């Protein structure tokens, strides 16, 4: 539904987005992850048709955004980073304006308004002036206008910013339900959000796409080395030679537990093959007392930080 083909955006001599290529399919929620200033909002704006790409092609629902953005606009629901609200209007007046502008037939106004108001929990404030709304309500009204008319493509720029934990939960549910039949691209810097609702994650920094994969795929691919930690009662030298003979163990560090002499803490770096930790467990437990063994997988935080921190050197290499 959304396709970017080597899209770049330059403002003067500054290049904000470099050669971005990815797509979002129907029924898919893709998380757009990156630090502030990475080019997320600019990319969103290009997909929404607020700005045009300097080079490359953006297509939404088959329409080229450079030439057919009028047709494409009917398929897009867009929630910008700052909810675009008219402070003097009442909530229902605002939603009616958006519904009218989206070309929703008059007869469906009532049902559409009720639907998005219920989804975004706005029923209580429909008659209130927008400038009187709290931040959470403003944010959800921004989401509600994007949902009007059931657009095939939903673009959400940090949809949960400024919400309290309960509201975040509800908003995620709305997005998840909507994403089952539509294409959703949402930007965020809240990592757990991505793992919770996105099928795929695109990591972007300094305008470049660094990786795009499922959250678990990113975790797997990001570290070829896993980490196994264990606690055992054993003589240090014998334990070291035993562990080093196991295939897959790359490096290890042994430390005595202070004040508890024969008990040792061991940290092993292993490669990604399956069953390494089982082999370690068997080897240790057959000769000594094994108290604890744990396999640590990299968290998405580590993955993200790794990608983002290595970006500058990669950029230089190119």
């Amino acid at each position, binding site marked *: 539904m959304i396709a970017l083909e080597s899209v770049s955006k330059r403002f003067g001599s500054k290049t904000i987005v470099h050669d971005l290529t990815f797509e979002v399919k129907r029924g898919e929620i893709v998380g757009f992850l990156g630090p502030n200033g990475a080019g997320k909002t600019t990319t969103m704006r290009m997909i929404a048709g607020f700005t045009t790409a300097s080079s490359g092609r953006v297509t939404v629902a088959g329409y080229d955004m450079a030439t057919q953005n009028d047709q494409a606009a009917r398929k897009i629901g867009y929630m910008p980073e*700052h909810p675009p609200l008219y402070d003097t209007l009442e909530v229902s007046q605002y939603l009616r*304006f958006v519904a009218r502008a989206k070309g929703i037939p008059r007869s469906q106004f009532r049902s559409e308004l009720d639907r998005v108001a219920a989804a975004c929990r706005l029923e209580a404030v429909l008659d209130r002036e927008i400038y009187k709304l709290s931040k959470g309500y403003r944010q959800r009204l921004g989401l509600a206008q994007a949902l009007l008319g059931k657009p095939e493509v939903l673009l959400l720029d940090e949809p949960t910013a400024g919400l309290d934990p309960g509201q975040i939960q509800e908003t995620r549910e709305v997005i998840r339900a909507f994403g089952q039949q539509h294409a959703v691209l949402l930007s965020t810097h809240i990592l757990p959000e991505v793992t919770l609702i996105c099928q795929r994650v695109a990591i972007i920094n300094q305008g470049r796409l660094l990786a795009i994969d499922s959250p678990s795929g990113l975790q797997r691919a990001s570290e070829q080395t896993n980490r196994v930690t264990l606690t055992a009662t054993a003589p240090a030298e014998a334990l070291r030679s035993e562990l080093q003979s196991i295939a897959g163990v790359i490096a290890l560090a042994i430390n005595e537990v202070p004040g508890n002499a024969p008990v040792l803490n061991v940290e092993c770096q292993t490669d990604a093959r399956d069953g390494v930790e089982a082999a370690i467990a068997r080897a240790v437990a057959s000769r000594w007392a094994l108290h604890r063994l744990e396999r640590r997988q990299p968290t998405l935080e580590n993955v993200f930080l790794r990608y983002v921190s290595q970006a500058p050197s990669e950029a230089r290499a190119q």
Partner: protein
Amino acid sequence: MNGVLAVYRKELLSYFRSPIAYFVLAVFLLGTGYFFSYNMFMSGSASMTETFRNMGILLLTVSPLVSMRLFSAEWSGRTMELLMTLPLKPWEIVLGKFLGAVTILLLMTAGTLIDLVPLYLFGNPQTTTIVAGYIGFVLLGMACLAVGQFFSALTHNQIVAALITVPVLLSFWFIGYLQHFQASYALRSLLGYLSFALHFADFVQGLIRSEAVIFFLFVSAVALTLNASYLQWRR
């Protein structure tokens, strides 16, 4: 056309849910009422001619207050991002906003009709001259609003938009008076042709000249077209 209607209704709502429409209407009607009574008692004649002249000048300073918010408020309120990504074409946005502002102008005009009551009660005014004057006033107002709306699209700041519009309108008004200092015939007729004041003067005299009608409509059309192209270019 649905897009135009959507924007138009939103603009009207915005005008009347903020104090600006009431303020502008009040100031304009107070001013007009003052000029009307002053002219009546000074001249003692049952005519609107002098009052129309004063209304023209008053309009140059009041219309920027109507047009200044049209686009700059959208930029500063970050709602431009919504307008430009909704299925609305730039000309629909521009036209919807323009019609909203013109509605305020028509309300201002309608408010001055009350001045006609004493005129018809105690005098015997020329109806055709008055009708011509009103047509001219509305056409002049449309041109002023279109120009103001264009400048409003260029800045995020409403005050700046008004501060650019007022001198531009005043120069369009007074440019005709430069005629007297020009030797070349071509330059004289050009300055005369560009003058808001000279074209408006025809209407005030009771003349509806097609050239003057076309002039004001042409200025509005050019300003609105520039406005829509600017939005397209900003994309």
